[in-house]
């Protein structure tokens, strides 16, 4: 099967709507089919990977730990738009520590999150063959 560049663009906050969770499900499917999958977090999507999510009080499943498993599915590029973080008063420190293990480099842990400007993200999007927006 041909391998294509897939990008999932996450634009909504978690829990208020089902988009974030649905996107994550499709990302895992795409990765299982050994496609070249990357994720972008823009707008309210940046809230999906915020640290310290605790959902006991709202009776919903906390699915944020799933993002930590993406590295094991060879989903290692999570682009976060700098402008979106700044508009929300957030920095990289407010996001989960998401990493992947590089088997070509003695399984060194490397950061999955790539902070990019809008201009840089636009260039990455241009390289994609399939872009799915959630």
């Amino acid at each position, binding site marked *: 099967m041909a391998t294509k560049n897939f990008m999932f663009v996450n634009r*909504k906050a*978690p829990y208020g709507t089902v988009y974030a969770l649905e996107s994550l499900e499709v990302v895992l499917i795409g990765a299982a089919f050994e496609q070249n999958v990357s994720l972008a977090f823009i707008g309210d999507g940046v*809230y999906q990977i*915020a640290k*310290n*999510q605790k959902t006991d*009080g709202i009776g919903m499943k906390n699915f*944020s730990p799933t993002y930590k498993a993406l590295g094991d599915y060879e989903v290692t590029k999570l682009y976060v738009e700098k402008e979106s973080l700044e508009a*929300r*008063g957030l920095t990289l420190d407010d996001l989960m520590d998401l990493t992947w293990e590089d088997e070509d480099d003695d399984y060194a842990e490397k950061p999955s999150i790539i902070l990019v400007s809008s201009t840089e993200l636009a260039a990455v999007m241009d390289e994609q063959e399939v872009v799915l927006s959630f």
Partner: protein
Amino acid sequence: MSTLHTVNKSPFERDSLASCVRLASKGCAILLIEDGVFGAMAGTDHSDMVKGAMENASVYVLGPDLAARGMSEDRVIDGIQVVDYSGFVDLTKQHDTCQSWL
């Protein structure tokens, strides 16, 4: 007559909070719930609008919805009160009507 306004949409995604703030009368209460809680955070592009609203209205935010989203109560705008579900119930009892900005 006093109204409790609830806003459940992110101010970055919809204009629900902006409309609520624009149309809320003096002495009313605004409670931020679900994705609306992002409007309670300090240092965002919408913080100044919310601070302006606080001159007219009491602003509250639902704690469990903050916690679910990883938003720290320490970074809520000064003067916004964090309430739990029973606090939500109290607010509905204290006001004559409730307006939900869906």
